[in-house]
């Protein structure tokens, strides 16, 4: 029934909610919000809808936000109520907002917080409900039954402390997300201070740290190059407790260590690295996802790391890449503060809900463009270079096996020529050539007379090359996808992508991130993608670039002939 539905949407008194006749926002029936960015009220509107709507696409004129249950619950967790959400929509909407959508928003938001997890003085962890039928409904679920203990009273049921994460995950799947008010253990105290000598946290980093600390646990979303490590350091300085940091790979672990020593009162000896090569456990320990998820004889031998100390804070770097087993361990760590850091909540595997229930709701987020506008990341010029396959290559491409096709068109010889031309064009600047296929990279390295970093390159060698690149001793570096994540190349101003992991949008964002750090000399960053025309390479590129275009990085298309000719 349309007219009933227990609508909690109340009409505010006259004057308070005014809808603009020509507002910047258009509410679509599929729950996307279109924001006209050139509108005078666009900024105010963006601020009003940001708490509950995820920015999905940010091309040049109209930004698309999406209202999802997770987004609405994130807003609830951040203390917003349905009325604020509805007000924001009604106030800025250009056209009347469909009533059904408002009702739906109110109902969805009302689902959060009906169930709360809290500490009971005698019964330990308990699940309490303000709405008895909801409790009855979820207790009848087969998935919930093994997770709960005895019924304490009509509104309360005991929960096995070990199932705190499990039950949050399960309840979210049932559509009744529980608010976790059970608190955290302080962990083993360890003095950590920020060493703000000659630098300080940027305002948005400070906001992110505060947002996280106030919320208890959760995720901070910042674009690549916006200084997520410092947000982590800031959180540690707040917690002043032993910290476990989970990162994607060893290079990234070293980076973290380097940064922490530089930016905090921590010394080299206080920070341990727990990776394939070293197994140190110190007050602050940095571990890689890889070592944690190593399985031997069906068990995860490195799990004890989580219990080896009384951690007060756990930091997850690149949450969107968190491997599935880590979720499982995380479920058991619900009593400890958790900070997730990421550039995007979009996971290619669609496990956003696990991030929400196990690490926590989004606590802070700032779009790329905004931080770019503040001058913290460099503006980038994105160019797609289209190369033609030669006739012989076209025939070979047409007859190639399906699984070989991409490799074939991605490694066409013309790409090498284009790359050479580009390197020549930007001679003197720090250039990264990024690719997927080792043969192609080796060949490029040979022709460009540049070192190649690939999977087999030792960590010591990698760091040596990175240092050299950083110091400007070498200006061109050819890297495989091992360099996708968390390496810090402050002076790279040009990135040339010759092949990629099919259509991964993640990868595109990360690679762009390589050139986005602010340049000392204010140079504009360039991001080139070399793509073979009329092949699946072009299709994949289109998919990847769509992501960039949606992030507001308008790209140009250039014909290879144009480049080679000039």
């Amino acid at each position, binding site marked *: 029934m349309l007219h009933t539905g227990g609508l909690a949407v109340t009409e505010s008194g006259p004057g308070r909610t005014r809808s603009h006749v020509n507002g910047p926002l*258009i509410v679509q*029936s599929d729950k996307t919000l*279109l924001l006209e960015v050139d509108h005078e009220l666009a900024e105010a509107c963006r601020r009003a809808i940001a708490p509950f709507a995820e920015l999905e696409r940010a091309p040049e004129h109209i930004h698309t936000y999406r209202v999802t249950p997770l987004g609405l619950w994130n807003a609830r967790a951040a203390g917003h109520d349905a009325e604020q959400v509805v007000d924001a929509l009604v106030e800025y909407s250009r056209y009347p907002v*469909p009533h059904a959508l408002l009702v739906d928003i109110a109902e969805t938001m009302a689902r959060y917080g009906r169930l709360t997890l809290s500490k009971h003085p005698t019964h330990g962890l308990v699940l309490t409900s303000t709405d008895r039928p909801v409790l009855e409904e979820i207790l009848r679920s087969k998935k919930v039954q093994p997770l709960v203990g005895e019924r304490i009273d009509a509104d309360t049921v005991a929960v096995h402390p070990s199932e705190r994460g499990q039950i949050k995950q399960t309840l979210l799947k049932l559509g009744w997300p529980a608010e976790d008010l059970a608190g955290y253990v302080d962990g083993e105290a360890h003095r950590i201070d920020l060493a703000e000598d000659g630098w300080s946290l940027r305002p948005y980093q400070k906001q992110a740290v505060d947002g996280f600390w106030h919320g208890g646990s959760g995720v901070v979303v910042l674009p690549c190059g916006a200084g997520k490590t410092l947000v982590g350091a800031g959180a540690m300085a707040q917690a002043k407790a032993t910290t476990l940091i989970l990162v994607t790979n060893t290079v990234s672990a070293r980076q973290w260590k380097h940064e922490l020593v530089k930016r905090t009162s921590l010394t080299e000896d206080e920070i341990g690295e727990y990776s394939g090569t070293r197994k140190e456990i110190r007050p602050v320990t940095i571990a890689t996802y890889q070592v944690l998820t190593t399985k031997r004889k069906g068990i995860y031998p490195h799990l004890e790391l989580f219990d080896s100390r009384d951690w007060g804070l756990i930091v997850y770097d690149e949450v969107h890449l968190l491997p599935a087993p880590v979720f499982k361990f995380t479920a058991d760590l619900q009593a400890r503060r958790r900070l997730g850091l990421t550039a995007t909540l979009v996971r290619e595997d669609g496990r956003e809900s696990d991030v929400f229930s196990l690490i926590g709701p989004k606590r802070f987020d700032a779009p790329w463009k905004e931080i770019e506008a503040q001058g913290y990341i460099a503006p980038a010029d994105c160019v797609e270079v289209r190369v033609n396959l030669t006739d012989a290559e076209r025939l070979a491409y047409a007859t190639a096996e399906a699984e070989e096709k991409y490799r074939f068109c991605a490694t066409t010889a013309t790409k090498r020529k284009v790359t050479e031309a580009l390197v020549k064009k930007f001679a003197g600047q720090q250039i990264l050539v990024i690719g997927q296929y080792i043969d192609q990279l080796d060949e490029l390295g040979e022709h460009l007379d540049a070192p190649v970093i690939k999977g087999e390159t030792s960590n010591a060698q990698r760091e040596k090359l990175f240092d050299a690149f950083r110091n400007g001793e070498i200006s061109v570096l050819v890297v495989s996808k091992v360099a996708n994540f968390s390496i810090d190349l402050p002076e790279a101003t040009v990135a040339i992508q010759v092949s990629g992991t099919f259509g991964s949008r993640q990868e595109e964002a990360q690679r762009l991130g390589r050139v986005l750090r602010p340049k000392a000399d204010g140079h504009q960053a360039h991001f080139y993608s070399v793509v073979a025309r009329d092949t699946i390479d072009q299709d994949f590129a289109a998919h990847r670039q769509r992501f960039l275009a949606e992030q507001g990085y*308008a*790209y140009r298309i250039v014909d290879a002939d144009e480049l080679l000719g000039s």
Partner: protein
Amino acid sequence: MGIGELDREAHVPEATSAGAAPRTLAEALRARGDEGLAALLRARPDLLSPVPNDLTQLATRAGTRGSVVRALERLDRFALQTAEALAVAPDPAPYPVLLALLAGDEGDPAIEAALPGAVALLREQALVWGEDDRLRLVRTARELLAPSAQHPSPTGLGPTVAEATAGMSPGRVQEIIAAAGLSATHDPVSAVAALTELFTDRARMGALLDEASPEALSVLDRLVWGPPYGEVTANPAPPVRWLRDRGLLLPVSARTMVLPREVALHLRGGRAHRAPEPVAPVVEVAREYRPQVVDSAAAGQAYTALATVEELLKSWDQGGPQVLRAGGMSVRDLKRTAAALDVTEQVAAFWLELCFGAGLLASDGEADERYAPTPAYDDWLDLPPAERWARLVAPWLTATRTAGLVGGQDAKGRTLAVLGPDLDRAAAPEVRHRVLELLATLPPGAAADPGTVFARLRWERPPRGAAQPVPPRAPQAAAGTDETTGTGTGTRPEAHGDLRSRLARWALAEAELLGLTGRGALASPARALLNLPLAEAATPTDHGGRVELSVAAGRAATLLAPLLPEAVDHVLLQADLTAVAPGPLRRPLADALAVLADVESKGGATVYRFTPGSVRRALDSGRSASDLHDFLAAHSRTPVPQPLAYLIDDVARRHGHLRVGAASAYVRCDDDTVLGEILADRRSAALGLRRLAPTVLAAQTDPASLLEGLRSMGYAPAAESAEGDVLVTRADAYRTPARTAPAPVPEGPPVPDTTLLGAAVRAIRAGDRAATAVRKEPAAPVASAGGLPRTSAAETLATVQAAAMTGTAVWIGYVNAEGAASQRVIAPVRVEGGFVTGYDHTADEVRTYPLHRITGVAELADDQV
């Protein structure tokens, strides 16, 4: 009913002297002014078809069962309660008696105020006649409403003492008299009268009941508000015995006792109804919005409605789903439509019925019947949005088809299909109109509490289900829970009782979907729509009404137009290959863009995405790349992003690169001059040759004719096989395709096998037994010398009706269910529902004959009776 008890009301009266109280309904009608008669005919239009010859006939018709039932159904709750009270009152009843029955012994100012109106209404509708001192309920109404063992009274009262003791032995009556402490009389009639007098005397009755044990009183308590009947054992308990002995309970049968009406009335404090409802429930305000908010929400929904209808019918552009053999659309197709529109099946059914009702979609009538948009749809598309909306809303208001029933089951348990038969509910337009009118009684911007709307509607037309002897509150409560659980889908067999409530609920939901209401409050365009008398809106056949409605719809459209989003003529193009139309697009632009790009998101704005596929579609439809560039440049507020221009050029570059066509044969020759010669030769024209490449000609003729033709032109062509070898022509033997040899066809049927034989013998034996069995009944009766009378059906009906009215006997020819014909002489008493009931002189009893079995009627010569 005997023949002697002719309808007093209809009986042709002798001329009445002016001023005297009317003795019959006909007389009462005759005494009315013209306005009074007009009011009657307006309230009960069924009396008019056909127009009665005189007032006697009008009175007769007003007393027929069908008409009275209809009139009773249209009464509001208090008028009905008044009629019910009259039915349990003495006949005729003076006004004070009626008032006491309704207001009880204590009286009730509200009822005292409302009763004159209710009586006047009943009188106007010719359900009650007579002056205030002698109010008479029309006999048929009395029969319908008075308590009897077969159908319990809505009041929950039982028969009177006189009725209940009618079959009792005088001795038993005397025993009761004695037990009740009355002096014995020898005459049973006066004994009953004495008992009645006791029961109606509050003081003496009070004294009598003071003696009753608490158990006995609790027995009475159980029966007092009905049903008044109770089961007893052969050996009743002492309290029941005590009541029975004093006549406070009277036996109906060996096992059943009844509480006499007078006793019940005493216990009820004189009230016929537990809860008289003299005042209509008020429609309450659930929430108030600013009128602009309501209008804008409604306009938003109105716009959504238009978009939905367009989307639905556009998806059927190439032919919609199949029509089921029994009519309507299959459940699967409905599901698919619902999924496509992203709504529930109920809502999808509503949109489908709306389009159907507005004449925008229909069955194509082909052998393989499908639904498709009608030509009217194309006209509709050309209208401005507000007009389009009016064209949807006006038919909705008057439609009897009811989408809410879809998915439910009819009386035979068949699922009701959307667009299928049996969805018409005559009450629907009136309920819809009434619901909107009730909303219109609230101030602008106020949303009604739906529960109070339903309560009001139930009061205005109490559902027949409430005629059960249960407290009048109960059905409301039941309906209330029904409504909160939202079982409006009608999965259970449809009960007439709550149909109006369900119609009202659907009307509210549908009004919201159409944008007549916004946030549950009536929007201003809808108010304009309602600005016309109900009668005109409710009868679509009435020409005048239709014009009125269209005028009102036009007014509503004018009010709506400024509220709808204004059409825009531009889009914003973006580098992520999307185009955003920041509002509804002008039609030609929207159509062109829909070809060039895929719609990604709809609502106030439309988001289009350009893909290679969509661009190819545009090229296929005959646009060139430069057309597309120009089109985008012309309609974009922003520069065309380079990636989009590249996309179009990329697709256009490859579009049409490969060409496909059909040819029947080809000519190839390494020497292209020879082919040039052939083409230049005028004789080759008939071969349909076309040069595909310097060395290849394609022909439209088959290879054999082509060879023949070329040979006749003096060339020496050779035929080529599919592999390109030259075919050598040899004198091959001609063969048919593989064939089976013919099977032998023996003369006569094949010899049957034993199984078949056995079965045949059994069948023959069974038939034989059936044929030779001795029958109990004799064969067809002998027709009389004169044969059966034969008259037309209309004539038959008229004659028996006249005979029923005058009480004369007629001669009929009758064919019974076995097909046997007979002639009978009957004196018709009642003609209704296709049956004539009358005293059959031939059989010497009262019998009922179906009219369709009567072959004919003839009046009797006087001496024959």
